[in-house]
């Protein structure tokens, strides 16, 4: 049980960090640019 909670907390923290770093780098604009290429 504790292992499951720990696994979830680690996954959630890593996921949120990844997303925050992507947003910090302004990747939304790059995604928009990719859409505009089509």
């Amino acid at each position: 049980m504790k292992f499951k909670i720990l696994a979830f907390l680690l996954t959630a923290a890593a996921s949120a960090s990844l997303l925050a770093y992507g947003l910090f780098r302004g990747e939304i604009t790059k995604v928009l640019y990719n859409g505009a290429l089509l």
Partner: protein
Amino acid sequence: MPFLRRRIYQALGTVLPNSYVQGFLTASLYQGPLKGVCTPLFNCYACPSALFSCPIGTIQHFAATGKVPFYAAGTMAVVGASVGRMTCGTLCPFGFLQDILYKIRTWKGRLPGWASWLRYAALAVLVFLIPAVTHVHWFSRLCPMGTLSAGLPWVAMSGSIRAMIGSLFWVKIGILLLFATSSVLVKRPFCRAACPLGAIFSLFNRSSFLQLAWNPDTCTRCGKCRKICPVDIRPDYNPTNPECLRCWDCTRCPSLKMTTVLARNPFGLPGMAEGRGAEILPGTSSG
């Protein structure tokens, strides 16, 4: 989650991200700020009615340009860490289509177990490796959802696009027909054997916040959960199976329940979940 409610969510997952109707009327693509948002389901960039962006298309774009897709991967990871593969089971439009096609009454078969490894191969090879080497978005070029929601509408709407039809278009049509016809015979063939988005979300089923709990004390191992499961698995054997779409159809059985990773006793009694049975309850025999 009641079955009808899931169908409503699937219909909303199909209609809402594709509600830019002007795209069809004016033969154009929406290019507003929402297009920068990755949805946790297939929402093809090139579909005239698409409001959002496809995460797989975005990841390929970054792979093709030699960059790491932190934002797209982070969005997928946050959704996966929260609900596992639930968006596949409750929102994805292509999953919805496959569920409907499977309703057609005819001979039914089962996919072999090894087929589920193919979606990881599709993720590694078609989404990361080949785009990184060739700088071309090969999964998007072959994606049956892209053919259905973007390729076919554009061919119908635009004479100049029709003039550009080549052999690749017929390969795409062939792939779409292959998955459409196989969906009549087996449950969700694309999700299980080819979907790279499903492959990403599969990795989170074990550690996601939402979990499926199984009660070994009330389960009679009747196998009805497998019958109603849209991917043919036995949730009683492994509630954290990476194949599980978290559609919650099996929770119609009282021995299976939607729960969270924080719930210690999802069925209300100590020890009645996670494979632990009556043997640890005080006053019961170990059988």
